[in-house]
């Protein structure tokens, strides 16, 4: 309870700052928090909004699942071999810090404008951190765990399942947390740049019409959802690290 109160207070302060900003730049089209919330409630009542949200959610869900599976699998593959790990790490880090949005046209050229492009783009964002975290977790796992397993006569399969997996899980969850966030970001950017549906498109469309309350309402909603999802993963993370 206490660890909800603090962030809630911070969010409260941010809302107040927003209101103050709204008053300070009066009449320039920056809606007040109240206007935004009213708009948000309005949106939540529209079927159209839910269609778009479902579109985003679908792309996001598929991207998360695929990048999680892919990221962990690739991370394990690279982590099992020290040379492979050391060779690929800087490449992965470099890919991570690349402004991937510039590669979006390539994605569009390959996948077309459908949901697959957005999924692919989400994966491009979300997979690398997971791969990196998983790989490093395996590379840096205490060798003594493996030796203990050997001494207890565990088969390689038993070792992977009952020792390696739980040992790297905290790192994997941390990676997943980052990956999930970035997946969402990737999908939304994809929708903003070239798409005909999804919340990103909705925001872009509203921006084009100068419909600020809608822009902020959707952005706010996404921010809150992202924070909540992240907080849940964070709790999972903490629970696992006794």
């Amino acid at each position, binding site marked *: 309870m206490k660890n909800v109160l603090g962030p809630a207070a911070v969010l409260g302060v941010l809302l107040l700052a927003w209101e103050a900003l709204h008053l300070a730049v009066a009449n320039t089209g920056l809606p007040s928090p109240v206007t935004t919330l009213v708009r948000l409630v309005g949106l939540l009542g529209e079927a159209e909004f839910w269609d778009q949200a479902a579109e985003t959610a679908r792309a996001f869900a598929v991207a998360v699942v695929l990048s999680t599976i892919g990221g962990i699998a690739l991370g394990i593959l690279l982590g099992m071999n020290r040379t492979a790990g050391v060779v690929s790490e800087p490449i992965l880090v470099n890919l991570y810090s690349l402004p991937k949005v510039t590669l979006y046209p390539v994605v569009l050229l390959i996948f077309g404008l459908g949901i697959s492009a957005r999924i692919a783009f989400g994966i491009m964002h979300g997979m690398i951190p997971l791969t990196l975290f998983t790989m490093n977790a395996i590379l840096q796992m205490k060798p*003594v765990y493996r030796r203990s397993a*050997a001494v*207890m*006569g565990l088969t390689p399969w*038993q070792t992977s399942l*009952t020792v390696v997996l*739980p040992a790297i899980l905290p790192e994997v969850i941390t990676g997943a947390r980052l990956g999930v966030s970035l997946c969402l970001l990737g999908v939304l950017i994809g929708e903003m740049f070239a798409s005909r549906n999804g919340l990103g498109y909705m925001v872009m469309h509203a921006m084009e019409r100068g419909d600020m309350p809608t822009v902020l309402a959707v952005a706010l909603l996404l921010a809150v959802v992202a924070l909540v999802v992240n907080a849940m993963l964070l709790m999972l993370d903490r629970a696992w*690290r*006794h």
Partner: protein
Amino acid sequence: MTLAALAEIAPVSDADDHHARLTGVTRVFGKPGTAKCVHALGPIDLDLRRGEFFSVVGPSGCGKSTLLDVLAGLSKPTEGTAEFEGRPIDGVPAGVGVVFQEDASFPWLSVTDNVAFGLRRAGVDAAEIARRVDYAVGFMGLKQFAGAYPAQLSGGMRQRVCIARTLVMQPRLILLDEPFGALDQQTRLLMGDELLRLWRETSATVLLITHALDEAAMLSDRVGVMSARPGVFIDILETGWEVDRDSRIVSHPRFGDLTGHLWEKLRTESLKHLRDG
């Protein structure tokens, strides 16, 4: 009693009596001839007598852990042969338990689950697991921490968990690699008492690697002193203690003689290591 009498080299015991035996064992890391090639150990001849408490002391990096790896079947000797209970060691032999220098408790399992881990994998039935785990946890004084996780325990407690985890497997040969290296001396002496108690109760053969001379002198039937790398035994010392000993023997006059003798043997070897930074 004179030092000369103490320093009597142990004769090779007869075949029936020996529990594990290393003959001419060496271990070289890396390709021979290359710059990275490290001659870490040997040649080593060693007979562990059934039921004895044998300690190995030696300067840092002299190959103590390598020796243990060979006995545990974790590492193959480059030359020579290693056998346990009359059979050559190939892979980790059943009946051998190991406690490592590093904390090897699994942080994701509670103390009980840690201790039960090996038994569960081995498919021992639940009632038997419960019985053995209960006993080991109690024996190592972990009763009140049974549900705790390693992160909530001190370093000494965690090593006890690892010892309990080894103990439940009922090993006939227990190998310990500086298990108390991270603890302070006083705690270490007390843990030594428990090790002695365990040894007496299980009547297993114990090989203890340590860098603490007092620990070696107080706990062991015999102490093997290793040279700087490549480690070979430069001395094997019979302590002549009763089976029924504990840490209070540190005030025994022979204890001082023993540590003094060990230190004399090791001082020059340790200086070799220290000079390399």
